[in-house]
């Protein structure tokens, strides 16, 4: 266990511009610390929990050191060749199999190649965040064109903010990660419930957001009471609504104790130590998503507000050089969705994705 911990740390340190003596110094320090905790009677897994996962501590350890860029073999050639490969494949699909549509989607390999080649150089954690718009777009279009499932097919786009948060997991505590992901779990659950006609009752799934948040409360007894009031309130609300003849206004009374207790404890923020700005971005995007969705009934595109989350994560966590390359998929996806949705130009709007390889090539040269 100790050797694996130190090996993992050493592999991560190899990605930074740091002389080998300094690297060895860090490894020796952690080796010493590990031994000291063992001597104090801790088990290996307890020691590793105390020291922190190598991925979560690497930022502190490498402060002021740049990441090493390791160009992927032949990356420039692969980026340059991808448009030709895409065009030839598109023509074969079109002329050979009459698959002009959805064969045009093959052009998405051009931006995908550019992102992999550009971000792969520094093994960015956010590589999958930057690639997710493509996976989601292809899935969304196939669901829409083939099965006419534009709604709730748009939900696949939620994978983008979820990945944005997931790839930042090493800078968060587990409970903060769950709290940050809870709005998306709620949105998916609410849409599925709504699909089956449970819009009126289904909104209670949004209460999982405070439910996870309350776990952060420092006083365990208060935390348990608070959770009890919340779960009891939801159970009571659903019971009154579904099994009695009473109207929903009366059913809401079941949540009053939880509401009052929350007001009483409102001096404390439910999302604990999650960075304040992350909290704000998640909450604002959720509000905007619901507000625009309900007011204009445009759920198919109102999820675009959630892109603010990965955009924020990339803006703060990815280095200057890769930042613009990582951000262009989100800009492109927003333009693609707006043009496709409002002007029904899906077959043309994909061209906007070409700004990604263009940006990557421009940055690399």
């Amino acid at each position, binding site marked *: 266990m100790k050797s694996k911990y130190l090996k993992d740390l050493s592999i991560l340190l190899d990605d930074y511009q740091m002389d080998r003596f*300094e690297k060895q*110094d*860090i490894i*020796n*320090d*952690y*080796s*010493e*610390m590990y*031994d*000291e905790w063992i*001597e104090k009677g801790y088990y290996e897994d307890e020691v590793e929990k*105390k*020291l*922190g996962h190598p991925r979560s*501590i690497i930022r*502190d*350890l490498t*402060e002021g050191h740049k990441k090493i860029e390791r160009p992927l073999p032949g990356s420039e050639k692969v980026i340059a060749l991808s448009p030709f490969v895409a065009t030839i494949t598109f023509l074969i699909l079109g002329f050979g199999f009459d698959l002009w549509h959805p064969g045009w989607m093959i052009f998405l390999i051009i931006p995908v190649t550019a992102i992999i080649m550009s971000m792969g150089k520094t093994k960015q954690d956010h590589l999958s965040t930057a690639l997710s718009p493509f996976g989601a777009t292809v899935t969304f279009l196939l669901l829409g064109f083939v099965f006419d499932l534009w709604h709730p097919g748009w939900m696949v786009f939620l994978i983008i903010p979820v990945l944005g948060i997931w790839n930042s997991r090493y800078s968060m505590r587990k409970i903060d990660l769950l709290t940050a992901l809870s709005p998306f779990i709620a949105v998916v659950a609410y849409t599925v419930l709504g699909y089956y006609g449970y819009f009126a009752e289904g909104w209670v799934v949004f209460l999982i957001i405070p439910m996870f948040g309350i776990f952060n409360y420092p006083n365990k007894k208060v935390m348990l009471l608070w959770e009890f009031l919340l779960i009891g309130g939801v159970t009571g609300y659903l019971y009154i609504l579904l099994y009695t003849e009473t109207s929903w206004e009366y059913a809401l009374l079941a949540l009053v104790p939880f509401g009052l207790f929350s007001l009483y404890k409102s001096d404390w923020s439910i999302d604990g130590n999650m960075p304040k700005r992350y909290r704000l971005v998640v909450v604002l995007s959720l509000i905007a998503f619901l507000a625009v969705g309900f007011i204009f009934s445009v759920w198919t595109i109102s999820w675009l507000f959630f892109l603010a989350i990965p955009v924020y994560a990339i803006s703060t966590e990815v280095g200057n050089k890769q930042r613009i390359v990582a951000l262009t998929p989100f800009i492109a996806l927003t333009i693609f969705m707006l043009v496709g949705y409002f002007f029904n130009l899906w077959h043309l709007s994909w061209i906007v994705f070409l700004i990604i390889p263009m940006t990557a090539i421009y940055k690399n040269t």
Partner: protein
Amino acid sequence: MNSQFKRGIIEMCVLKMISREDMYGFQLIDTISQEIEVNENTVYPILRRLTKQGLFDTYTKSMNIGAPRKYYSITEEGTLKLSEYEGEWRKFLDGVYRILGGNENEK
């Protein structure tokens, strides 16, 4: 508390502790953490940085059981830096106390 601000204060505490007696990393963390909430991942980078800046010297001491320990001792440059930090810190605290005291008097 702002993490940058806290790190600055911990840096001064590390200098102070090592100026009192030579210590190894774990011993230093153990001592400081009795007064302030700190962990290894904050203190070790500070120790390495201050050593790199020439404020600490290091030497190893072999133990009866286990691997030898790396001890840190303060250099002359480190002592000068510490007194400079202490002076700035006292001046800063005096200002803060004057402001806080002033507010209280107004009440």
